[in-house]
């Protein structure tokens, strides 16, 4: 079974490039300010979420194992 993830987007650096939405469309959604929010960390596979985080041009996304607290990205 897939592990539970905690996904965060730092809004002091997010520029709304929206690449995360392209890689993991069921997890990330742009809010009214057109910044990304992780609305559903279980929406896509861990692989897709990590790909989204890696492709963030300003490294705004962090991904953790929600149960152990282990940091998976960066």
């Amino acid at each position: 079974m897939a592990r539970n993830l905690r996904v965060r987007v730092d809004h002091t650096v997010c520029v709304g490039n929206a690449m995360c939405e392209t890689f993991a469309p069921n997890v990330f959604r742009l809010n009214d300010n057109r910044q990304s929010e992780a609305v559903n960390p279980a929406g896509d596979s861990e692989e897709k979420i990590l790909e989204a985080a890696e492709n963030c041009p300003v490294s705004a996304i962090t991904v953790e194992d929600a149960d152990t607290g282990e940091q998976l990205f960066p």
Partner: protein
Amino acid sequence: MSIALQDDMFTRDVIADPYSYYGRLRDADPVHWNEKYELWVVTRHDDLVWLTRHHELFSSAVFKNDPRLPYPAIDESDLGLYEYVRNYQGDQFIQHDRPDHLEMRKVVHGYFTPKSLEEWRPFVQKAVKHLLDAAEEKGRMDVMRDLATPLPVLVIAEMMGVPEPDRPYIRELAEKLLYIGRGEYDRMTPLTEGMKGMIEYVSPLVDERIANPGDDFISVLASGEKQGVFTRHQVLVNTSLLLLAGHETTINLLCNGTLAFIQHPDQWAKLKKDPAGAARLATEECLRYDSPVKSIQRIASQDVEMRDKVLKKNDRVRWFISSANRDPDMFDQPNRFDITRWPNQHVAFGSGIHHCLGATLARVEGQEVFKALAERFPGFRLDNEALEYQPSITFRSLKSLPIHWH
């Protein structure tokens, strides 16, 4: 409210000091209609962020969608050359809107992620060391000629697999391409020479990488043709775009940043105390304080209301990074150069889906240069207090920056 000051963005005064002119507009008339060039001038930070993140309202296909003649005016006999410029510029991926833009950006995006570019840091460090070794021996340098120009040309040429002896020629073509943001009456001739020269130069390189793909950046672009995302002309135009964009803006970051340190000895002292620790935030402040790119244009895709103005469909809209990055509603003491400023939500790379593809590369080069300068040199003095800038509305480019040390 309208402004009765001399409303020309290409005068010597505005080129020398964009901050006063655009700052006055930002305070008095932040969404300003410039009658002379028939375009909207947007100067506030929040408006710039809003505008760039509403890409569905403001088209990036500026050359394709603007039926008007170029500004400032050009000679009528050059209109044929301008058609060439339109077709060339129009094929750049940055001159596209969604959905095409997303497909094009996806081809190149992975090459420029922070993680991929971190692998280039040792190469950048070695190149900086090599250039500074040569400068140190001479006891003086023109930062532009001896450091800021060769470094990014070296990096982007290495990424693209451009042979070393060709690099001065690339720089020569790039200088002609810079006429795109300028006002000279006869600028279409050097501009089209630069464009045709680039196409001619990159054609055989692209042919070769299509036949034998490698891990270089031209191969990445060429893979876009195989996927059916790019036409051959688009591959050629985008290869030359990245060859240009990969260095011109970085040159400005390195020169303008070095100048800011010379003009602010207290901040230089702060950098010198801990070059490796301070370089990251210092680079962000250099990007904010005297931004490499001054302004970018869009075309309104529909009627849009901004503040108390109505921007009509097809109106030209130009947003000014230089004034947004000095907006007092966003930055505390905006005219102060403070290398510990954080958070620093500058818009030197724009924002939204068109946020600069090469931002991380520029950051790595800036960090390594400012760090190395502070580690190796006690301090700098200008050879000549009088500084001259290129007469461009797009780029904040010094013509040269000769310095010595003590």
